[in-house]
């Protein structure tokens, strides 16, 4: 099966559009004139509380996700919502949030200025969402860098007409791209340009390109929540009937006695992080044990979820 065209549209500067992208459909976001950043939000079309999460995506794929990566939803769902099928430039950003009215007023003195938060909110309003529902955006074609001192910076980009990214929906989503509103920053080289959006039914080759992912118990659905009801009032009030049910609590430690030979004791003395644990052999040995486990068995970066898990 080859790709079948579903829709095409031009997204004008200052605008965004919610697109119902069903599972198995491909969205291409394409440069018309070049050098235009495109901010992007995504929601589960059937449950807007599940949304694309830059933090999760950043942890798994790094600061510059590109083709071959996934766009993940937030915990406790943590589903691969979209597969990043193609990227002709290879520079995107998940460090910066969307720009906002506050940014332009505080830093530039504008009372009203195009900004990605408000553009997203206006596009999402078509589906009954509110400005509070806009979440951190995946910023396509945006060039950013982490400085030595830990701060982040925006640099100019060099995308050309025809450059594009393609996203394959792995679930039904509301995909919301918008033309970034930053015309007085480097994000889009100090200009606002249109971009082209195309939706296809995926080809067999598109579908076959998606790597297999494990399905784990920890990828929860609302029917597993202790409170699955979406709160409909703004004020927060404590529930008098609330009784905490934290996982695995109380966490009581148990002793594990380990006899070390003279050679093993010498190893411990060589390896022990005395700078952290002083003369406490137990803490030093526990550190060695779990650091060894990470080095030997982890298939993901330290602290990142794994896509190759053998958990059952």
């Amino acid at each position, binding site marked *: 099966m080859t790709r079948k065209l579903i829709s095409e549209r031009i997204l004008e500067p200052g605008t965004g559009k919610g697109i119902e992208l069903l599972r198995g459909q491909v969205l291409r976001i394409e440069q018309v004139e070049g050098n235009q950043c495109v901010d992007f939000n995504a929601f589960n079309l059937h449950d807007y509380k599940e949304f694309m999460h830059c933090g999760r995506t950043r942890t798994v794929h790094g600061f510059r996700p590109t083709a071959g990566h996934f766009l993940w939803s937030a915990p406790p769902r943590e589903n691969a919502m979209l597969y990043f099928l193609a990227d002709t430039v290879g520079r995107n950003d998940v460090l910066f949030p969307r720009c906002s009215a506050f940014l332009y007023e505080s830093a530039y003195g504008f009372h009203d200025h195009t900004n990605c938060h408000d553009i997203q909110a206006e596009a999402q309003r078509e589906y009954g969402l509110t400005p509070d529902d806009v979440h951190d955006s995946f910023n396509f074609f945006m060039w950013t860098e982490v400085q030595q001192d830990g701060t982040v910076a925006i640099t100019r980009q060099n995308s050309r007409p025809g450059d594009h990214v393609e996203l394959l929906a792995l679930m039904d989503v509301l995909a919301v791209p918008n033309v970034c509103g930053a015309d007085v920053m480097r994000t889009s080289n100090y200009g606002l340009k249109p971009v082209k959006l195309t939706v296809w039914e995926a080809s067999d080759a598109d579908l076959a390109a998606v790597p297999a992912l494990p399905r784990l118990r920890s990828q929860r659905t609302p029917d597993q929540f202790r409170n699955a009801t979406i709160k409909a009032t703004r004020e927060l009030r404590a529930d008098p009937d609330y009784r905490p049910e934290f996982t*695995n609590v109380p*966490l*009581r*430690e*148990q*002793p*594990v*006695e*380990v*006899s*070390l*030979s*003279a*050679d*093993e*004791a*010498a*190893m*411990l*003395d*060589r*390896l*022990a992080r*005395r*700078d*952290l*644990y*002083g*003369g*406490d*052999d*137990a803490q030093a*040995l*526990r550190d*060695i*044990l*779990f*650091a*060894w*486990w*990470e*080095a*030997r*068995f982890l298939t993901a970066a*330290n602290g990142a979820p794994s896509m190759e898990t053998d958990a059952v």
Partner: protein
Amino acid sequence: MSDPSPRPDPSPRKVTLRLNPQQLDLVDRTVARLGLADRPALVRLALAETDAAPAEARK
């Protein structure tokens, strides 16, 4: 934490780790995965393999 200097006493000794149930779960699954006899055997293996690893591999 008190003494930051290395211990100068490499004689046989007993060390009592204190592990919570989650840590013990991982330890026990790894003991089974590697076919080891018990928890102390895993700790000793971790110690030996860490000691044998290049210093730059230790984090």
